[in-house]
């Protein structure tokens, strides 16, 4: 069933519906699969609008993102939680392979109701902090805005 998911068209769509219905956890994500993470905090972008390396840093592990194939731009950008995120939120895209090149991996960890109060079947997590010394910078170089953020960057300092 997982193999069918990575196919395009009707077969892939049908596999995603079936997996979601059964609440199966996907065991392996191919390198080329697209991941999304919302960006709405102005502290995560430089004044020129580019992403800061801190956006990709989470030494606690379990850095959250959504598997694009199982989500929609709008849902990932606005958030699955009932509180939602601001309208100006952007969506940063990167690939599973980029995370592996930066010294971590990605696993499918769906958020299910119950025990959570909302559901996000597309939810994924980094298995560990990026271990390459320049891992965060490498991610910044490879990532791009799927949906441009509208937040105003914080006025920072340039000498």
């Amino acid at each position, binding site marked *: 069933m997982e193999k069918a998911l990575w196919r395009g068209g009707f077969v892939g769509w049908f596999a995603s519906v079936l997996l979601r219905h059964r609440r199966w956890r996907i065991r392996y994500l191919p390198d080329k699969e697209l991941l999304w993470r*919302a960006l*709405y*905090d102005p*502290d*995560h972008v*430089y004044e020129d609008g580019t992403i*800061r*390396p*801190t*956006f990709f*840093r*989470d*030494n*606690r592990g379990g*850095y*959250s993102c959504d598997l694009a194939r199982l989500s929609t731009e709008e849902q990932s950008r606005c*958030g699955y939680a009932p509180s939602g*995120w601001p309208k100006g*939120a952007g969506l940063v895209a990167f690939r599973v392979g980029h995370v592996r090149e930066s010294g971590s991996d990605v696993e499918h960890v769906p958020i299910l109701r119950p025990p959570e109060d909302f559901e996000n079947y597309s939810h994924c997590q980094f298995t560990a902090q990026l271990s390459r*010394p*320049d891992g965060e*910078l490498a991610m910044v170089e490879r990532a791009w805005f799927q949906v441009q953020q509208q937040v105003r960057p*914080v*006025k*920072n*300092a*340039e*000498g």
Partner: protein
Amino acid sequence: MSAATLEMLPHTSLTWPLGATDTSAWDLSPLPSESTTRVDLCGWRTQWEPAETSSRPSLGIASIDQKSARVAATARAASRVLSNLSRYEGLLRGWDGYDAEPFDASLIHWARSLLFEITTRLLRADVAPDHLTSGPAPDGSIDVELRRGGRRLFFILYPLVERSEVTALEPGEPTILESLGEGSVERWIRWLVR
């Protein structure tokens, strides 16, 4: 700005022009209506006062000594980073929309001290960075980033001091990552400005 920070930062006062004796280089264009320029950065006070303007030729901004311009640029940059650090103190859990950690007061205090040391060393080296910024991360750490030429230097501060590190990047060279320890700031600022 807390009183503690004010105490921490020195007060400097520079009077403009600094040792300018060759009046032929002066710009004689009219002064702006505000003849005194002050950059007040919560303790770092840089002040230019065209003294006795009635008996001296008017001086335009173009003739400001380059050294004082570098001091002003560094001081202005440090001031903005200081105000950003104060803002991080007020960020609550989940400030990034996910589950970001709030920032420990002691970490903010440490970042301020680090910024003071960086600024002092830059002023001593008489160098203004191209870029001096700070950035918060979801795991409760804070970056202080400097750029000069093609070099980039990140001081990454974690609530656990032992985890804090320096990342240095130079085009064509491998990335350097090392723990932030005693003497690190001096050494890496020297690397940045060399």
